């Protein structure tokens, strides 16, 4: 009996022991020519430049496709030609003639011609996916785009603007993801039922940029392969691997262990935990994302300008950036982010409850005495920000209730103008102040049935003819100096009378192994460069 028990135990011990040695020592470190990053990539939906509108997807296609115009890693502030080598603008500012860079070759080996560029731009309009609005403001639509975007010869593309848009703004817009030049022959060889290769390009690539897409598995992995013929030379990293690691704490372990070269989504406490680790360095890159609070102007109390002004004084800007937002956000109070051309960096507001009380009294609400709802997202730091605002509100006699929701629940309500006070985030769609001015300031038709749901100004029922005119002037002004003046004035004015309390600008913290050099992460989500990285 005892023997049998012993034998049984020995059996289990044997099985357990098998599990041990079979595993063996685990190799640490990544290959010299491969860069592996741990990132939450579950926001990727598609990788077709005509549709990509997510952070990770935008970043990935930025490294696969050359756009017509680009901001390059070497100088993030200057717009330069990408696939286009040069451009000329007609005297009336309505025609942009682009000259292609000679001898550009797609990953497939196909030569890039003007026909590819024209096809790519028309395709965005014809597919009419979310980012198409970047080009529809040129006055292009499915019916006229073939006549307004033409390729008279192999090296020339002519763009005709059919609206009052400034050509300077149009050039900036051509640096957005929708400005990517795609390989027409390759994409059209995969066309099904006249879909312009849409189904195929969702999960494949057809570009000429530094990398091509080798593997994409949703919620799992993205593998990019270096383009040996890239015009800036073959990138040092032959492979870029984005590993889906949803849990930030797991990302930290991976970077500490050296199994990944970069960890992209570490939270402030995890970053703090890495202090003192000589193998890991933290990169701090200012980003264009803003956190703001919007007061619904259709609300009987929040629509009062004095109440709006009061709200700007109840935010504990300093307190938050020095506590739970430390390292990840800085104070910024205008709608165009700091570090970009035409940003307005004045921060006239700070926590001042006495002033807020006085403003409420002026508005006819001495001592507060009303109740509002604050809507925001469930993920950090939004609930914390809402709580801080709630505390301040209670001190001036305003009772508030916080409602947390996932984005897919929150946005429909916001778009339907059913919010009261909402804490949300905004990032520009392309690097031009009009991108945000159009969203925050421009509302040409305040009627409910106008459904200008893409504009947060419309969502908050903010309608001001003076502000509208200023936004339109900025969009159509050709002279850069005059444009600059308009945007600075517009931002200042919006701080005074707008429904938005813009609070913070994001600063991205990325953990890198100390041998990783040359990582460039610009302000916008699609200005992250893999090609400059070395190890």
């Amino acid at each position, binding site marked *: *009996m005892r023997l049998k028990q012993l034998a049984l135990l020995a059996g289990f011990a044997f099985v357990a022991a098998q*599990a041990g040695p079979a595993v063996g020592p*685990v190799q*640490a470190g990544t290959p010299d020519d491969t860069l592996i990053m741990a990132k939450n990539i579950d926001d990727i939906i598609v990788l077709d430049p005509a549709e990509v509108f997510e952070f990770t997807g935008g970043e990935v296609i930025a490294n696969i496709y050359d756009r017509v115009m680009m901001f390059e890693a070497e100088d993030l502030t200057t717009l330069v030609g990408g696939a286009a080598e040069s451009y000329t603008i007609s005297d009336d500012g309505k025609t942009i003639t682009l000259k292609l860079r000679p001898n550009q070759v797609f990953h497939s080996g196909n030569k890039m011609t003007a026909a590819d560029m024209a096809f790519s731009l028309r395709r965005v309009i014809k597919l009419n996916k979310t980012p198409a609005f970047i080009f529809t403001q040129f006055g292009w639509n499915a019916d006229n785009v073939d006549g307004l975007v033409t390729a008279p010869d192999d090296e020339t593309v002519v763009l005709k603007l059919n609206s009052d848009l400034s050509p300077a703004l149009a050039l900036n817009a051509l640096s957005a993801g929708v400005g990517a030049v795609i390989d027409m022959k390759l994409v059209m060889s995969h066309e099904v039922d006249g879909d312009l290769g849409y189904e195929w390009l969702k999960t494949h690539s057809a570009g000429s940029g530094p990398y091509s897409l080798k*593997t994409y*598995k949703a919620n799992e992995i993205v593998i990019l392969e270096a383009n040996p013929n890239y015009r800036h030379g073959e990138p040092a990293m032959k492979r870029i691997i984005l590993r889906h690691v949803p849990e930030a704490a797991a990302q930290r372990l991976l970077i500490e262990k050296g199994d990944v070269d970069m960890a992209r989504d570490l939270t402030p406490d995890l970053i703090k935990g890495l202090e003192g680790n000589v193998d890991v360095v933290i990169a701090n890159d200012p980003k264009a994302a803003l956190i703001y609070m919007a007061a619904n102007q259709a609300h009987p109390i929040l629509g009062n300008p004095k109440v709006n002004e009061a709200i700007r004084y109840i935010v504990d800007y300093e307190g938050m950036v020095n506590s739970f937002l430390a390292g990840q956000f800085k104070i910024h109070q205008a709608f165009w982010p700091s570090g970009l051309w035409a940003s307005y960096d004045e921060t006239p507001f700070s926590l001042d409850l006495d002033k807020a009380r006085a403003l409420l009294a002026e508005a006819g609400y001495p001592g507060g005495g009303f109740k509002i709802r604050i809507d925001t997202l469930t993920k950090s730091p939004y609930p914390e920000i809402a709580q801080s605002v709630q505390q301040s509100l209670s001190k001036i006699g305003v009772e508030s209730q916080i409602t947390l929701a996932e984005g897919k629940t929150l946005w429909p309500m916001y778009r339907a103008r059913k919010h009261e006070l909402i804490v949300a985030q905004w990032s520009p769609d392309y690097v031009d102040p009009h991108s945000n001015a159009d969203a925050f300031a421009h509302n040409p038709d305040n009627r409910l049935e106008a459904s200008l*749901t*893409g504009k947060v100004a419309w969502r908050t029922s903010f309608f001001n003819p003076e502000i509208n005119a200023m936004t339109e002037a900025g969009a159509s002004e050709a002279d850069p100096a005059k444009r600059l003046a308009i945007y600075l004035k517009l931002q200042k004015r919006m701080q005074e009378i707008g429904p938005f309390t813009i609070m913070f600008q994001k600063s991205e913290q990325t953990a890198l192994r100390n041998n990783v050099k040359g990582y460039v992460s610009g302000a916008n989500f699609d200005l992250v460069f893999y090609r400059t990285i070395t190890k």
Partner: protein
Amino acid sequence: MVEGNFTTVSGTGEGSSPHSLAARIALFGSAIAKPANVLFTMVVTILGLTAITFIIGRVMPADPVLAIVGDRASQDVYEAMYLKLGLDKPLLQQYWIYLTNVVQGDFGKSIMTTRPVLDDIITYFPATLELASVATFIGIFLGIPMGVAAAVHQGRLIDHIVRVIGLFGYSVPIFWLGMVALLIFYAKLGWLPGPGRIEVYYDGIVDPVTGFILIDSAMQGEWEIFQNAFSHLVLPAAMLATYALAYIARMTRSFMLDQLSQEYIITARVKGLTETAVIWRHAFRNVLIQLITIIGLTYASLLEGSVLTETIFAWPGIGQYITKSLFNADMNAVIGGTVVVGIGFVGINMFSDVLYRMVDPRARR
């Protein structure tokens, strides 16, 4: 639960079949009727599952259109997608369209991955199944001996240890346990690899024939990949197994204690049987019948309940898939995933039912 145990002592009573003709006919009839019943139950269950999931998905405030077009989409882009998804039709009609498609094997497309849901499930489900199977396996092979040992040595040290382990496995949050295990076995000791199903360098080498990396790599003779995949499986499976192990050990102990206090055990001992024979051949055989149900339930719950483990260990499984789809109102994916897990649940229950009949002669009557 305990009636009729004396029959097992004699060693002849078990498996004795009814001799009358009527009984034989009845048995034959029930053998045919059973599969039909089971099939009916299964169809009704799955139908109910799709209906409830569908309705919940449609009445949720989350907007599936925005999940695709993003929150900044203009109204015309939004409306085009709204119509494309068929959301303008009445709820019942939407459900009917969905159902007719499903019957033809078309679960629709996931809006988050843009692929057919069935393709997604074929990709993600094996990862979860692999994890849950290994975890259940560990749970059975450690949990049962632990439970038996604890019952036999009730009140002694080993019993206390097993009970503490049971309490621990049952009550410690897997999220915390997983992180701590990673910290110790991966970060500090370096015995096991970190999160992920396989080292990224091996990605794409093995053709996904079955979707189970262990089976595919073994079939294709890629032993290095097999070893790597196995080493990646150890920690998450062990974490998931703590729950299975705790539950199985606790239940085994309690069932065993119940059996050991029965009179037939005393009879067996009086007969002079060895302690091993008393425990394993008599008491345990009765416990096994009850355990089959417990194991089936545990296995099924691991299939659906591994979301946290999958998240911590970056395991591309069905749990993560369904959860993410739910947050994005990706209803085709949610329903598809739920149906698969539902089928798994029903299937496991059926299987344990069959096993139950095989092991317990009384259940056949």
